[in-house]
């Protein structure tokens, strides 16, 4: 039977690192995905380590007012925003006309031919890299909401709790984020039809 998060947290407060490992195992992939999509960083796994270290050091301050997951995502969001701020000072603004970087090296950005096998093209690494880079052009505020909702599948009220904003703000940010993405990815969005 699965031990409830809050019970494990209480054990962590008594320095029980085994209990913490159960929590880490439960949430490591969720946090990794959030961190990777938010930061676009190649070292997302190191950032994820940072999130779990911060969480453990602060666990005595966790009061159980929100779920452990919500609290963890909040730390992840803070770590990401902080990292992004630090690294964006050195980052050169890129435009959507720049070549897309993939693991096979740089390839020129071109609109794929949808007439062939749209499923296959949609799965391509090139499109994934393009979507990831487009996500990074959104502001922190819009990006966090669209990732939490559209990728992590988090409901509005939990997003509101994680980011400590009203539910109405979550909805309007989600709308604005999708509008901005739609405009930037227009050829891909329309080509799918």
């Amino acid at each position, binding site marked *: 039977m699965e031990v409830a998060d809050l019970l494990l947290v209480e054990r962590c407060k008594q320095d029980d*690192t085994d209990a*913490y*490992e159960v929590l*880490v*195992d439960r949430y*490591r*992939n969720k946090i*990794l*995905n959030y961190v*990777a*999509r938010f930061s676009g960083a190649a*070292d*997302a*796994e*190191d*950032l*994820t*380590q*940072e999130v*779990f*270290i*911060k969480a*453990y*050091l602060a666990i005595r301050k966790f009061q159980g007012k929100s779920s452990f997951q919500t609290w963890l995502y909040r730390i992840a969001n803070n770590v990401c925003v902080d990292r992004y701020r630090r690294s964006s000072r050195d980052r050169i603004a890129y435009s959507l006309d720049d070549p897309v970087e993939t693991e096979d090296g740089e390839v020129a950005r071109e609109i794929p031919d949808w007439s062939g096998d749209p499923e296959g093209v*949609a*799965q391509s690494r090139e*499109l*994934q890299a393009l*979507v*990831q880079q487009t*996500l990074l052009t959104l502001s922190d505020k819009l990006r966090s909401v*669209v990732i939490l909702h*559209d*990728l992590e599948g988090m409901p*509005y009220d939990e997003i509101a709790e994680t980011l400590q904003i009203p539910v109405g703000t979550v*909805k*309007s940010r*989600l*709308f604005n984020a*999708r*509008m901005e*993405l*739609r405009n930037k*990815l227009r050829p*891909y*969005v*329309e080509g*799918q*039809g």
Partner: protein
Amino acid sequence: MHCGKVRKLLADYADETLSMRAEEQVRRHMEGCRRCAGLAEGLARTAALVRVLPRLETSPEFVRNLRRHLPVAVALSRRTPEPAGVRGWLSRHTPRGRQHYGLVLAPLALAVALLVYAWSIRTAPLVTASEPVISETAYLAAVAREHALYASEHPLMDTSAANLSVTLVSARKDR
């Protein structure tokens, strides 16, 4: 229902979280309004497009790395220096919420401390057998050494040394 209101509901409409009645109203509006219908479709497709991003999984080393980092982080975080001198002694011995005790205790403690100090420099040699104090730089150097060792064994895997020390220093400053 007018276009402005419909657009506010589009995210909920796409997620099918509207009430039956509101959903019906939005649907009816979009039958007559091509602009809203087009927008709704575009937004739904955008959400679908974002989901081409694959799910990632942590590497098999993730938990093992955390097991190595966590004790170091905990050790460093517990080295938060307490306020020194009479002030520190008072802050450790004054019950919370009863700070006025400190006002009474302060002169007393100062007097006792001065007496003890005067007595100790007369009777004892200056070297005391207290715990060895390791400087912050020495601690960080130890952490860095540990990582350097690890990084030389696994050159492509461990890039977290710098992050970790930044984390630890900032975590300690937060306290």
